[in-house]
């Protein structure tokens, strides 16, 4: 039970519920879970090219010759890659920052390893840098910094749009999001 508590959102109660379920009703599932976790803990590393989590030296996106290497999408975390892969038809490649620039926390370009991204841009294949960092102050600062890196190299950079969530109602949306959506309006 203690072991399950390391999962986010799992308190003592749900930990004991999960543990009893696995041990009493689903021994096979418990063993499969144990093997999968062991394999993941031992085998998962960071892709050499994009730094996403991967079991091989190159992740499946970087290893796929059909992906367009001229489109490079920069995200903060591996979870962001997964979200974009599942929700969009994006056919380019990624670079995972594993964080964001946060000067007030002491995280600058070198702490974030941005030299790796610069090296990637210097290879000359990238034509468009898509900045998909979060719409937070740190995410915006990071996007600005990356846009400058791209500009120096004559590479076009684009920022993903932020606005009203699909199915959302304007009156319930926070002011910042609404202001952003309003200033980002476009011709229809």
């Amino acid at each position, binding site marked *: 039970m203690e072991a399950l508590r390391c999962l986010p959102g799992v308190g003592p109660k749900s930990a004991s519920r999960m543990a009893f379920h696995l041990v009493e009703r689903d021994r096979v599932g418990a063993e499969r879970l144990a093997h999968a976790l062991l394999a993941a803990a031992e085998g998962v590393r960071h892709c050499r090219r994009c730094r996403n989590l991967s079991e091989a030296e190159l992740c499946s996106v970087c290893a796929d010759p059909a992906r367009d290497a001229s489109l490079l999408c920069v995200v903060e975390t591996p979870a962001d890659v997964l979200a974009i892969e599942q929700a969009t038809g994006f056919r380019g490649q990624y670079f995972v920052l594993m964080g964001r620039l946060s000067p*007030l926390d*002491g995280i600058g370009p*070198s*702490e*974030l390893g941005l030299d790796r991204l610069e090296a990637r841009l210097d290879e000359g294949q990238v034509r468009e840098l898509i900045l998909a960092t979060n719409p937070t*102050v740190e995410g915006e600062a990071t996007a*600005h910094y990356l846009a400058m*890196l791209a500009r*120096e190299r004559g590479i076009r950079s684009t920022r993903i749009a932020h606005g009203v969530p699909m199915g959302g109602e304007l009156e319930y949306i926070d*002011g910042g999001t609404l202001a952003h959506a309003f200033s980002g309006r476009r011709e229809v």
Partner: protein
Amino acid sequence: MRVELEAAYVLHARAYRETSLLLEAFSLQHGRVGLVARGVRGARSRTRALLQPFQPVLLSWRGGGELATLSGVEAAGPALALQGERLLGGLYANELLLTLVARDDAQPALFAHYQALCAALAAGTPIEVALRVFERDLLDALGYRLLLAQAADGSPLQAALRYRYVADEGAHPASGVDDGVPVAGASLLALGRGELADAAARADAKRLLRAQLERLLNGRRLRTRELARALLGGARGEPATSSIPEGAHRR
């Protein structure tokens, strides 16, 4: 202690535990306060957007000491959409406040100066001018007011004269002293008026203010300044951010 609907800005927010944020806020009547905002990082939390820097808010909290608990937040106006260099300028001001202003020290005048800075950054005032005026006002609020109308001997500053500005004393005619920051009389007067129209005045003001702030920083590094320098230096081979201090970490 209970504080209700206090005008404030969040200076910095950092993730804390699974769903909470640790906030450093700057408030009108209570100065800098540390707050924990519980349960605001959920996917559907509307509060989170209000707890970003540069969003004027009304904050309510309970408790005191090092860390009080946020009990409410309302928008007090539209968020300032600072972008690019203006955003970095705003973050620099936040870092100055976090580094130089002690917690729980009411600074209502400084709060007004900070508000004015945010407005200036959002309105398109030249960034350098907005930041220099804020630095001047910050020094004033911290008890290190610059003398920008009179020379050290009490005589009115002459625009056409060269001076050397000596900390804690003021401007001396340049011919009379060796120490201090060399600066034109016109630049001191311009900084006093908050109008740094020409490049020479801006350069003088920057050097003067930098020297005074450096004394207060006492060797502490400003990470936003290093980031700005890395940007200016083309971010390439620039040593500004290469030495990693203790406590720096990746997330």
